[in-house]
């Protein structure tokens, strides 16, 4: 299959990434141009088509290569060296596939939930998909930032228009929290752009930026704050429970499965490679590990006492993402790979949990755990799916959750044993928050008459949950294909961190000019031409430079 797909480079590999970004937009136009009662079906079909197309990436992707592949680049704002350039590697490919899988499922899961302004809703969902896919595919920092911010807008409206009672508060909180972070990141990006000396926003150009350790630390802080709010890491998490509780089901699903991943993806893609010196700085590592571990324990505790099921699951997201944070900042292969698997696993299992909670809400119009009980008697399929998903979420071996958490913890243990030990208590607390919820919803006496009419899964709902449940078990039993595909890219990130840190150390010692040389190009593949190719010629860059200065005066 690999050879087959690769034998037609002129076909699949050339257009697929662009198609993934722009097909949702075409779908968006189609939805807007059609009557409202067809919006849901159309949106599902478009996103489903995108998913089927994206499946080819599994094979088109070369597992042995740690750099970007299927790259393509078109000049966008030549004066500033901005390119519309896309590429994919072992880190982003899973995020992209997760996005293309979860979006149609979320749309399918929303058929009964969304009753008002359906055209607008589904158009926004497709816009959201475009933004998220773009975030994961962009290899130009400017383009990345545009996509990163683009995701904010549809999510804001999805929460603000189709949300619950406190939707405005939640939407504004969500927007402001993330905007604060991303504006700081914008400042950092501009600083890097102007100080790098390369008039390009390409990923490679930023990698070669020549930064002292002091600069690295400041820029790291700005980036980390932006991504950390998105993750969210403790104590920047309070927007998440509100947004989740108020968001409509598909919004929660996308938020948990995809938007949170943009933060941790940013850690892996930008934070570590751009600032290798800072990423290895003992204080930085300590701080990140502390917030990661604190998030795991704290969120688990807070989750355990929530009366609102959706809020409970929202807090568990914080706990899960804590595992990603410690895995990433352990700076070991196992830790990074574990973090990535937790990201995938969390996307699948928490997405499924939100879908299940949405189904409960559709039936009973309540999210309070105490309003349920004994559901297992009237809805056995629902209960089965719920239990499997809950177990995957608390990391039972044989499900996806375990593989990720195990690797993340063992990777952390290699370098920071104490953090891993404390984080491992999260295993206990996971049972402490999840099982009581499962019990109070599914088990116990069926003592509320309203719950007698709690219908079991419909055929559509089985199609919604089936793929996710299958994926949880597949990754849990046979994670090899996932791990082997992400390994080279993860290795490349680690090499970059190690080399870069050495270079940074040298440069601070000698204050010399040759400091960047050692660290340049640890990551990009040999044929990373387009970004610094003829599109941004060195000759044109100086003459155009003055036009960029007005921006700098602000």
């Amino acid at each position, binding site marked *: 299959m690999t050879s087959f797909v690769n034998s037609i480079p002129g076909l699949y590999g050339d257009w697929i990434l662009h198609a993934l970004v722009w097909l949702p937009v075409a779908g968006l136009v189609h939805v807007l141009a059609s009557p409202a009662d067809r919006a849901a079906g159309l949106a599902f079909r478009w996103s489903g088509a995108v998913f089927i197309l994206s499946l080819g990436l599994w094979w088109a992707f070369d597992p042995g290569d740690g750099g970007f592949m299927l790259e393509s680049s078109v000049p966008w704002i030549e004066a500033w060296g901005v390119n519309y350039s896309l590429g994919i590697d072992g880190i982003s490919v899973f995020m992209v596939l997760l996005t293309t899988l979860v979006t149609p499922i979320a749309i399918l899961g929303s058929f009964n939930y969304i009753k008002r302004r359906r055209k607008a809703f589904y158009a926004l969902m497709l816009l959201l998909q475009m933004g998220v896919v773009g975030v994961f595919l962009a290899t130009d920092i400017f383009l990345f930032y545009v996509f990163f911010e683009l995701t904010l807008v549809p999510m804001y409206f999805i929460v603000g228009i189709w949300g619950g009672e406190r939707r405005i508060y939640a939407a*504004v*909180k969500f927007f*402001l929290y993330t905007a604060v972070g991303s504006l700081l990141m914008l400042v950092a990006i501009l600083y890097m752009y102007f100080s790098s000396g390369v008039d390009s926003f390409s990923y490679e150009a930023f990698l070669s930026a020549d930064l002292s350790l002091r600069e690295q630390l400041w820029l790291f802080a700005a980036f980390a704050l932006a991504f950390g709010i998105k993750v969210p890491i403790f*104590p920047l*998490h*309070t*927007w998440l429970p509100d947004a989740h509780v108020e968001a409509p089901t598909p919004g929660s699903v996308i938020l948990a499965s995809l938007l949170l991943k943009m933060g941790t993806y940013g850690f892996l893609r930008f934070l570590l490679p751009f600032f290798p010196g800072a990423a290895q700085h003992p204080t930085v590592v300590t701080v990140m590990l502390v917030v990661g571990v604190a998030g795991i324990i*704290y969120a688990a*505790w*807070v989750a355990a*006492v*929530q009366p609102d099921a959706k809020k409970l699951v929202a807090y568990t997201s914080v706990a899960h993402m804590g595992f990603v944070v410690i895995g990433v900042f352990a700076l*070991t*292969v*196992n830790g990074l*790979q574990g973090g990535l698997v937790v990201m995938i696993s969390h996307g699948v299992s928490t997405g499924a949990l939100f879908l299940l909670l949405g189904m409960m809400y559709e039936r009973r119009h309540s999210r309070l755990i105490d309003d349920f009980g004994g559901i297992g*008697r*009237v*809805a*056995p*399929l629902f209960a*089965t799916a719920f239990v499997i998903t809950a*177990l995957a979420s608390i990391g*039972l*071996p*044989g499900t996806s959750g375990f593989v990720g958490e*195990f*690797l993340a*913890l*063992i990777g952390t*243990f*290699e370098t920071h*044993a104490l953090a*891993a*030990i404390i984080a*491992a*208590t999260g*295993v*206990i607390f996971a*049972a*402490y928050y999840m*099982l*009581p919820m499962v*019990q109070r919803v599914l*088990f*116990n*006496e069926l003592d509320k008459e309203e719950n*007698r*009419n*709690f*219908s*079991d899964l419909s055929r559509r709902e089985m199609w919604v949950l089936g793929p996710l449940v299958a994926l949880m078990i597949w990754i849990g*039993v*046979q*994670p*090899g294909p996932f*791990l*082997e595909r992400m*390994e080279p890219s993860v*290795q490349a990130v680690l090499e970059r961190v190690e080399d870069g840190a050495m270079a940074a150390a040298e440069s601070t010692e000698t204050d010399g000019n040759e400091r960047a040389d050692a660290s340049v190009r640890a990551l990009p593949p040999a044929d990373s031409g387009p970004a610094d190719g003829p599109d941004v010629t060195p000759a044109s860059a100086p003459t155009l430079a003055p036009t960029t200065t007005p921006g700098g005066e602000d």
Partner: protein
Amino acid sequence: MLSAAAATAAAAAAAPGPGPLARQAADWEPLLPGLIILLPLLGFIANGILALWAARQSSAAVRAGGEWDPFAGDRRPLTHTLPTWIGPGVMALAFLLTLWNFEGMWAAHLDEPVVEKFWSWIVTSTLTVDAAIQLDQLSMIMMLVVTGVGFLIHVFSVGYMRDDVGYPRYFAYLNLFVFFMLVLVMGAGYGMMFIGWEGVGLCSYLLIGYWFTDREKSDAGKKAFIVNRIGDFGFLLAMFLLYQAFGTLEFGGIFDEAEGQLVAGGAVVTSITLLLMLGAAGKSAQVPLHVWLPDAMAGPTPVSALIHAATMVTAGVYMVARSSVLYALAPTSQAVVAGIGVLTALIAATIALKQYDIKKVLAYSTVSQLGFMFLGAGVGAFTAAIFHLMTHAFFKALLFLGAGAVIHSMHHALHRTGSHEDAQDMRNMGGLRTRMRITCAVMWIATLAIAGIWPFAGFFSKDEIIWYTAAWAGAESNPYGWLYTVYWLVALATALLTAFYMTRLMIMTFHGASRVEQGARGHLHEAPPVMTVPLIVLAVLSVFGGWVNVPEALSDSVVGFFGALPMSEWLHHWLEPVTESAAGVQVAAMGDPSYSAPLFGGGEVMWALLSTLAAAAVVAGAGRFLLARKYVPAAEAAAPSSGLGRILYNKWYFDEIFDRGVVQPILAASRWCWKVVDTVLIDGFVNFVGNFTRLAGWLASLFQTGQATTYAFVLTLGVLAILGAAVFLQ
């Protein structure tokens, strides 16, 4: 199983050449070992589909406001007949396949474990965990116990659960449990073992809460899972340390390297083994993590027999025995393991004295016997621990199933008369022997076995553990010799307590005057053959099961039938390839065990005779004493109000201490985190920023009068200010 073993032994003895267990490398291809694991999984899938099918029908009935009665028609629905064949069927096949492989392994004189890899489970550049199984003598014994006893319990369940609406679901869970248990004992590394480890915990959770609409039962399941996870936390950390020390989690890689890699008695191996012990304590209900097991009796009684007596709870013992090399390298951990074991044995035995629920007594008895196993494993008598594990599986499964037959009978009788008396409370029983002769007889056999009375199975295994404790206490350079002496004395005393509380159980249940309600008495009846046949098979095993490992020292004496038994120390030799390196390490560290008991002297034969005589005396004495006592039915009885009786009745207040000391503080902390940190501190700050901005905006808006002329005036002032600045600040 034993008959087959005996047959093979006879065949081996007849064959010329080296002794039956001479160590030599041999090529041996196990027959479809993967299928042994796969069969219960297939059973789970088949039964699971049937269970969902049945549950759909049941849910439709419940939604309509009624209850589903699958037994209303003339014929049972397919969902309630097929599991009868699928559930025990896959177990029978798995057992036969295991037997076949057992015979093959025996014939091959296997020296090295046979590892079969299916696929790579977790692979990164520095860590590889294979989905692989390992067949060696230890896992073979466990497989035989799991599939053999498991099969009998499946058969018993057919009778016991016959009238339950969730029949297919029950068998689905039970099959799934066996699957995970087999993964646990057959896994070729700690990673695989952990899959089984948590998997059996899951099944235990599901089966304890099998009647999930009952809040108490569902609570018990949850408690079991969470307490187990405390142990799993230790297991996880131990795996991390093992990975750091060895770079692998496979048994082969670890045990071959252990002696070279680890400093004997060093911090690393001690931490690893202590953490593993934490895991084992969680799974095998050792003090203080034993609190979940008595509650776990909320599950159906055959589940208690299979999971909470015969197999799952012994997983911890299996793990310690499996890691014998590591423990032998860490004498401190050994002393801790043995100490926890003996303490558990004592505490649980004392609690069992004052319990009235027949299953609770057996539960504490199980905890106590598990303590004995840990004592054995702790003092380096790994074979004795596994031996006791095996015999305990026989007689404790028998006791639970017998209790199940009693409860079944009581339940039916009380149900007939519409009584709401507790069918499990022994104060409501008495005199059942006339109604249930077979059950009474087999349970007496099991009682004599667990009490350690010659020549029943429990005598040999328990005596061996106690004797090894004494022997190692006297080892020349055992740093904890005096501690071992204490253990030995406590273990002896506990053995007598065992004899007492088991006699109490038997007397209260089967003897004396009947305290069953007048009307219900007539409805008491013996269990059907599908239930009694497994009981009889287990009774046979409880009698003869101990004969496979009569110690050499005893075999020529009266307790060893003067050498008439063909299999003296069979199990010991059988397990030698697994345990010999541990034994070597231990002898190197502590010197040889002594051949006479500490403090009093005397050899193994003397102490064996003494202990069986003492136990017999306790049984006889307690029987006379308790028969003479009057019991009042549970409804009229009051809880003991003072003294030791009250403490024992309340189980040493472990649950209360945990609740006040751990659960409530964590809950309070959780609420504090939510209500104070999240809501007040973090959100307070966030909302403060928001409100501050809003306030500033409101203040600024006061300058907006809406009068265009005012704006013009301010504008002019502003322009003048800028111009002025431009002019004067040049």
